[in-house]
């Protein structure tokens, strides 16, 4: 192994810059991962600080830079780095997902650029479990856009950030199409930082239409974009296991009361009956393959595998009947959060 085989990848995002020092031999290894807020006025500072901090860990690593910032391409030259555009990264990842046999992959990036969109405040406020006026919420969203690198310091702020992501992803057609099974890959921002994966589950379930089933994979280190840049330059890294994606499990949106059969390949088939408005978690190990059948008028079958949370069955009516400013909605949101929190505690 030589030091020349080390790669330093800079992923310069809207609000955060991530740096990864990786090695391809003897196996895929992320030797070091650091991130800092992006110094938006001059991206050289945050990039330079990260390179300095990480370069001491390896001799002359090859540097790759990827970003949507126009200045990033110019930054690459003095660093003797290679710039990889986001378009190339997307294409490489798309090819890699195919190589991994992911079914209908959909990538959801929870990065800070989502907070810069125009939101209808009622769409965001409907998902809050606490009282907040429309004006307060508008002001919060306005301030968040000014300070997009901020990290939610309490549960209320976290809920608002999550609600903003719900509003941002509500337009994704794949989440509304029940006839299509998708592998949803979540990366960046809260999707990578969230300590309780069941919160990610609830966020996605809230968006999923009646009858929708997805397998969820999480990029826990927000490495995916960097990996796309890496494999664009070093094709043989595509075959190396970096354990980038963690299988969180399966989400099933039944849209009300229903019955589901789970065939683990054993003698007996497990049948689960869900009442309306119930959310149930069935622990299933990541390596366990399951044939899942939903008993509508006609049976619908899916082949899935378990994961960190296993299989979550959602008996809530879709679309959710939530309204901003209504006590009923706040109570419902709160009860759903608690339901999944409790499930997690039970699991422990």
């Amino acid at each position, binding site marked *: 192994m030589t030091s020349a085989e080390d790669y330093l990848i800079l992923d310069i995002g809207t609000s955060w810059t991530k740096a990864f020092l990786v090695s391809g031999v003897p196996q895929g290894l992320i030797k070091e991962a650091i991130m800092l807020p992006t110094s938006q006025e001059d991206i050289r500072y*945050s990039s330079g600080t990260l390179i300095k901090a990480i370069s001491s860990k390896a001799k002359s690593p090859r540097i790759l830079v990827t970003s949507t910032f126009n200045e990033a391409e110019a930054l690459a030259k003095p660093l003797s780095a290679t710039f990889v555009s986001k378009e190339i990264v997307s294409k490489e990842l798309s090819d890699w997902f195919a190589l991994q046999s992911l079914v209908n992959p959909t990538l959801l990036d929870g990065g800070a650029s989502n907070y810069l969109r125009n939101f209808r405040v009622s769409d965001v406020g409907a998902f809050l479990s606490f009282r907040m006026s429309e004006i307060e919420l508008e*002001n919060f969203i306005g*301030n968040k856009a*000014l300070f997009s*690198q901020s*990290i939610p310091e*309490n549960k209320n702020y*976290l809920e608002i950030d999550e609600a903003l992501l719900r509003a941002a992803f509500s337009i994704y057609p794949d989440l509304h199409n029940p006839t299509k099974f998708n592998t949803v890959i979540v990366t960046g921002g809260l999707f990578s930082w*969230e300590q309780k994966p069941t919160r990610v589950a609830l966020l996605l379930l809230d968006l999923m239409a009646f009858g929708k089933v997805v397998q969820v994979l999480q990029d826990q280190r927000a490495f995916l974009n960097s990996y796309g840049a890496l494999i664009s330059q070093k094709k043989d890294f595509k075959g190396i296991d970096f354990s980038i994606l963690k299988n969180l499990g399966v989400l099933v949106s039944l849209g009300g009361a229903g019955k589901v059969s789970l065939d683990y390949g054993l003698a007996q088939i497990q049948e689960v009956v869900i009442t309306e408005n119930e959310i149930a978690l069935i622990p299933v190990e990541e390596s366990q393959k399951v044939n899942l059948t939903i008993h509508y008028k006609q049976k619908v079958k899916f082949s899935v595998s378990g994961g960190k949370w296993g299989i979550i069955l959602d008996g809530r009516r879709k679309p959710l009947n939530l309204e901003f400013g209504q006590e009923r909605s706040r109570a419902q949101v709160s009860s759903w959060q608690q339901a999944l929190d409790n499930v997690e505690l039970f699991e422990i």
Partner: protein
Amino acid sequence: MISPVIRRITKNVEHELERKFTGSCKVSARVGDEVNPESIIGHCEVSAGQRLVKIAHELGVSGSSVKKYLLRKLGDRIYRGEIIARRGLIFGVGKKEVKSPADGVINEVDTNGDLIVNFMPTTVRLVAGAKGQVTKVGQESIFIKTGGTKISGVSGVGREREGLVKIIAQPHEFVIPQMITGDCAGKILVGGSLLERSTIEKAVTIGVHGFVVGGINHRDFLSLGVGTDVGITVLITEGFGTTPIGLDIFEAAKQLENNFAFLSGEAKTFFIPIVKQERFLKTAQDYWRKLSVGDIVRVFRPGSQELIGKVEALSEREVLNSGLVAEVASVKFLTGKKITVPSANLEIVDA
């Protein structure tokens, strides 16, 4: 952790003041000239617009025949009340006349028989506004190198406007319409924690030039038309919502009350030239640096009444109340209250 370094107030800073022409301008200053605030550096002609005079309709004639009833030619200068068209009635009994509604120049007669009168341009004297030296005379503006106090805000709207500084409210007060009186016309009003929409509407009516305020509701800010100009300039120093203007900014502005100042929403700056100081510091670029204990910081905390504090301790990653894990800082506000916040939520305030 690295943090952006913000300069809320920069005193004795060098500043290149751009004095934009309000119309065609006859410049009376040259590059290198030393100027005082009251020095006249140009005479600008402000176009006053046009007016349509319906001659054919008033005289009861066809549009094509209007020209033969005109008493003045195209290009003639006419004065308010002057008879510009006349028609004698049948048998010489009586007549119909049309008088000029304003001072102006006859521009054209259209096919409908309407006369277009260009109002006389008004001459406006352009003053330097600050003590300094003329560095450039351009097609649309004159640049003056000067110095003074520069206050930076977090957001703003409206083109550059000028006026005398007037303290309108204490930091914790709401800026309400009753505070806007006739003597606020042409001034830049400073202070308060929330600028209300009704106050802005009254201020525009009275002719207030601008506000420097702690906070404004986001919807009111958007209603001012980001990227456009509604006739007033607003600078927000702390953020959206009810947030008292920082004491640092308030005290600096208070000391310079009644001074002539320049407010730009687009540049998010409030510049108050000083006439006494001769040597000024160069403006440094905004930058980022490593966050350290002892730094004065501004905290991202929507809705909080206190935003400026001092870093007392920094620690490695900790679990926040939100359940997320992040580097944190202990910050002590000026009132003595202490909080622990993610370091990423801080901006370093450059003293």
